[in-house]
């Protein structure tokens, strides 16, 4: 998200660039596609009786969180305010017009691009609480979370807030999106509790091809997420594009070897997970590091995330789709490694990291990660507890056993044979 500087925008007097605008228009659409991609990635990993509910948790964010962002979220993230949170001057998109006052693209487009980030960040959390959270409680949570957690954290890192003042580097959202959602997911899994039958029963993916397709759509869209965060159609966007191609490739290689060491066979679900882990890890670094550094970063990031996944599988915490291992640990690893590999010689607008003469950057990165963990974790806990007073967070035991598709949405995903439902003509 930083073209010329960490958290800053290009000089306000620059004229609008057609090339930049075209690219960011495309990037916004790409990032929007990531939310349905995520829906299928998650959907394939759950049991068939819960697939629609899982898909809905992502799709619904497109509506509620998207509109909330335009109405209020954008203002709290990006308008003046103080070091902690923006103000209300851009609420209802007041003052957000077609002129390019913030950079070389129309302000309205910038708002929309950022909105697609908010939408998917909220949807990411769903992975931790699938197959048992009450849909109304989930929806209430992500709406409040977008305003109370996502917007301020965005402000800290990209809206001119205190983390950007500290010099924290986050090119496309390692802390803002992934650590943020990862910690919220951890708290949600803890507060909502585990699924019936976890960990002793077989709670298995019902459609692994969906998982791979979802990963593919995510990778495709991620080019908009990372390269679009250059906010320009230029060399930095090209750099971010290439690092986004190479890092997940390296993660996939290492993950395959890890799978083979563990069980003798590389797996499809593992490969899809590895791709996502690599994409997450390179997100904070994409436009700040060299392509070869991206290969190293991707390869290294496989290890803590694989380990975190093994740990979760042995623990009693039912973070069902490993949001913590992939996004929390992946995002934190990527953010810290950004402090190692960042190189001002490549991107003059960034800082440099440990390997290029500035070991202090690692400390700054760790500070940023810690701050997001503390705030997102704490606030998510409070929000869930408050919501739980009014709406039970879980579906009932019977609803969970029957399946959330039928009980939360009145639908079944796979009606293979006609004639099993009769219309109610009474």
């Amino acid at each position: 998200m930083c073209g010329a500087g960490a958290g800053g925008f290009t000089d306000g007097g620059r004229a609008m660039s057609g090339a930049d605008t075209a690219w960011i228009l495309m990037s916004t659409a790409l990032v929007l596609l990531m939310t349905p991609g995520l829906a299928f990635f998650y959907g394939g990993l759950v049991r068939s009786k819960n697939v629609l509910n899982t898909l809905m948790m992502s799709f619904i964010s497109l509506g509620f969180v998207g509109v909330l962002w335009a109405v209020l979220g954008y203002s709290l993230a990006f308008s003046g305010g103080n070091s902690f949170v923006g103000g209300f001057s851009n609420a209802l998109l007041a003052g957000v017009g077609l002129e390019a006052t913030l950079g070389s693209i129309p302000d309205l487009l910038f708002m929309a691009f950022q909105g697609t980030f908010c939408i998917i960040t909220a949807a990411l959390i769903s992975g931790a609480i699938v197959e048992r959270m009450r849909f109304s409680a989930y929806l209430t949570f992500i709406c409040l979370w977008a305003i109370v957690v996502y917007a301020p954290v965005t402000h800290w890192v990209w809206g001119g807030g205190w983390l950007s003042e500290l010099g924290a580097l986050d090119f496309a959202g390692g802390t803002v999106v992934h650590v943020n959602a990862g910690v919220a997911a951890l708290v949600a899994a803890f507060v909502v509790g585990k699924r019936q039958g976890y960990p002793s029963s077989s709670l298995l993916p019902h459609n692994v091809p969906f998982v791979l397709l979802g990963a593919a759509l995510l990778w495709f869209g991620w080019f908009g997420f990372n390269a679009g965060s250059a906010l320009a159609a230029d060399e930095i966007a090209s750099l971010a594009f290439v690092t986004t191609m190479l890092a997940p490739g390296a993660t996939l290689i290492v993950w395959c070897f890890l799978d083979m060491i563990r069980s003798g066979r590389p797996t499809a679900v593992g490969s899809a997970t590895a791709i996502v882990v690599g994409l997450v890890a390179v997100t904070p670094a994409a436009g700040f590091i060299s392509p070869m550094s991206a290969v190293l970063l991707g390869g290294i990031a496989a290890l803590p995330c694989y380990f975190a996944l093994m740990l979760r599988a042995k623990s009693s915490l039912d973070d069902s789709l490993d949001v913590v291992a992939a996004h929390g640990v992946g995002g934190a690893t990527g953010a810290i490694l950004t402090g190692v590999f960042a190189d001002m010689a490549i991107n003059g607008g960034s800082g440099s990291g440990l390997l290029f003469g500035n070991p202090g950057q690692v400390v700054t990165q760790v500070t940023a990660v810690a701050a997001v963990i503390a705030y997102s974790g704490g606030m998510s806990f409070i929000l869930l507890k408050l919501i739980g007073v009014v709406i039970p967070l879980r579906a009932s035991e019977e609803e969970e056993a029957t399946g959330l598709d039928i009980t939360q949405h009145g639908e079944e995903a796979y009606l293979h044979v006609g004639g099993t439902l009769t219309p109610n003509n009474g």
Partner: protein
Amino acid sequence: MKLIKAIVRPNKVDDVKDALAALSIFGMTVTEVRGHGKQKGHTAIYRGKEYNVSLLPKMEIDVVVSDSIADDAIKGIVEAARTGEIGDGRVFVIPVLESYRIRTGEKES
């Protein structure tokens, strides 16, 4: 009439169909099932956790035949479906009281 219920390896369905066709037996119902006798399964790993897969995919072929060709049908099925390895399957024979053709409403003997 006898109902011959054959549980066979999925890749043997075509061979069994051919064997029955050779006896002019064309009507059948085929279902995807899972099960095991002595055959051991395998282990799967999904995201860090191991699972034992012991219920294995098989295909169940149901044919209803007249008593006079039941023995030939059974022999044909068994020979077509056999590989000699554990997991080849089973054939069960159940008596049938009555059979009706829906298109005409006629009772078959």
